[in-house]
């Protein structure tokens, strides 16, 4: 259903990929206890590139992007973000997190703060920005996600789609150069999915580097420069959306696509 709604809105938006590497993963391995969740992951992301990661649940796709801002710790291999190597040095981790925004499936807005305070908190406390400046930046972003009128409300008073748009504005307030999306529309009512996807499409048009874990294949077709298919902790196949959807190489990908596109 969502496939058609997004598709009907337009063609694939113009790619803005440069040859500057912003994220580089080489031979990344991660275990949860005995469970080998990421196996020898190699991934290079270029500035402005929009990557959609899909795959069955438990395939490690969320874990993969959560390793990029160190919400999960990898045990073997190298991760470089914006040229900074991810290690146990807290300064490096803080530097990476300042430049990498993240949007969660469950929004994770701060419920005790208003929408505006949600968006100004990090700029004020992390970037030491003046409050007045942070507020004007936040209002600009809330206008961009089309909910400036909700600024004084608390997250609990908003709908799911509105909350997720606030979450996007909150991440953008730190002026990141990379955005990670961890199934941003999976917890939303069907009526609200498109309002969030529209904001994400707008973000893609502005040239943001994006890594999106999602099941919205319409979004992938329209926005992605590259689609990555993961299963059992491995990258099974990666290709342009055109090739990926019309001409999948591996049998596992074909099976996956036939299952999600069957209805």
């Amino acid at each position, binding site marked *: 259903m969502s496939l058609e709604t997004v598709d009907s809105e337009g063609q694939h938006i113009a790619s803005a990929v440069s040859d500057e590497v912003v994220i580089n993963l080489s031979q990344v391995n991660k275990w949860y206890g005995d469970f080998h969740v990421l196996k020898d992951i190699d991934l290079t992301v270029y500035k402005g590139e929009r990557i959609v990661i899909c795959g069955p649940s438990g395939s490690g796709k969320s874990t993969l992007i959560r390793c990029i*801002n160190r919400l999960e710790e990898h045990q073997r291999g190298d991760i470089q973000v914006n040229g900074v190597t991810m290690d146990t040095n807290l300064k490096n981790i803080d530097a990476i997190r300042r430049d990498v925004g993240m949007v*969660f499936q469950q929004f994770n807005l701060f419920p005790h703060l208003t929408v505006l305070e949600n968006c100004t908190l990090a700029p004020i406390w992390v970037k030491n920005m*003046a409050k007045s400046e942070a507020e004007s930046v936040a209002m600009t972003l809330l206008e961009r996600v089309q909910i400036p009128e909700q600024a004084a409300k608390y997250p609990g008073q908003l709908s799911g789609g509105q909350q997720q748009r606030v979450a996007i504005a909150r991440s953008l307030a730190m002026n990141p150069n990379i955005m990670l999306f961890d199934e941003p529309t999976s917890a939303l009512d069907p009526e609200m999915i498109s309002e969030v996807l529209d904001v994400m499409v707008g973000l893609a048009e502005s040239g943001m580097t994006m890594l999106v874990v999602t099941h919205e294949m319409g979004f992938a077709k329209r926005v992605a420069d590259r689609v990555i298919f993961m299963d059992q902790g491995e990258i099974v196949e990666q290709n342009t959306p055109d090739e990926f959807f019309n001409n999948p190489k591996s049998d596992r990908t074909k099976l996956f696509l036939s299952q999600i596109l069957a209805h």
Partner: protein
Amino acid sequence: MAELTHTDAVFTPKPSQPPPPNTVGVVGWLRKNLFGGPFDSVMTIIGAGLLAYFAYGLFQYTIVNAVWEADSYRECLDVTQGAGACWAGVDKWMNNYLYGRYPDAEQWRVNLGGIILAVWLAPFWFEKVTQKIAVGVSAVLTYPFLAGALFLGGDNGLFMQAMSSVALTLFAAVWLNVAACYSGRRSLGAVLVQVTGFAGKDDRLYKWVYLAAFAVGFVVAFIFQSTWNLAPVQTTNWGGLFLTLVISGIGISTALPSGVILALGRRSKMPVIRVFCTAFIELFRSVPLITILFMAVTMMPLFLPVTLNPDKLVLVIVAVCIFAAAYMAEIVRGGLQAINTGQYEAARAVGLNYWKMMTLIVMPQALKLMIPNIVGNFIGLLKDTTLVSIIGLYDILLMVRASGQDPKWLGMHTEPMLFAAFVFFVICFAMSKYSQHLERTIGGGYGRR
């Protein structure tokens, strides 16, 4: 099928109807809660009867048959034959119940200390006042020093002088802030910034304005308090309700901050801190308060240098604080565990470090959840402090018992106990009600999330 679908072109929702009349209002409440069926009705009538019987007895004893004027318990008994209370004795002893053996001529200092605290915290209830957290924090951190200087009198050294000057400065700041808020400004800070001409400039400079204003206030306060000449009153003369409130007040105000630190320590990833905090909490939680009190007053002095000569009251207060902190730590830990991991992740993802994440995101949410438990703990602590009577501190409970051994009032036990019970009930009930009020009001409108 036709009935199941709206056939009109435009969907018009049905108007809302009022609920059936006997399910709402007074009648609805009575039906639901008291007379839900024959069994409920019988139980309600029996319960109401018993309640009326006891209330009548209490009324007869405490009011109708009570004696208000007498010079000894004997005189009271002659009048009442034991069927009424002898409030005359309670009245004669009242001063001791409230102040212990604090000299009559100096009791105004205790009253003044109480008034200062009440006035300090009053802005909490003022609608327009901003920065209420600062009001509470300033009072908790500095008021004990001011009160200590006031209650002890005499010369307590430079540190106490400095700290009570800080307290006076902050007290003044709290009320200047109230004045600022009610004259239409945003806060005292905003006024200061405007007066000094920093308004409109980078607000990161504002903190220097605040610091300078504080320094000026501090100097004035220091000069002011150095003119005081208060007669010293030994802590051995402190007693009654006053002593109970001093011990439990300090215990209550230190319990939360130290409990938070212990709870965070117990959840820490650093093994040394975690083991220390866990051991501290488990040790002091597994031991009765009375044991800790005995250890504090009998054993601790053996380990301390003789020259230090620690005050018994200080040892007792430290013991109560440790005990309260250990309990509070577990309450805080429970509250922390109720916070969704998503909140931690979101805070991390926007770049907050550990302490900012805790103070800005996690604690404000956790504290709201913990209010009922925290206040329950405070009420328990207030009542637990009566145990200090066992080690010979004349708190309200020991005073009450002592009055029954006064030769003139020999045998007067029930009345003072009723009085003490009444005092504790008033304080604890007020705390409980206030906590319910806090639960409703704190944190704005984020009821559902």
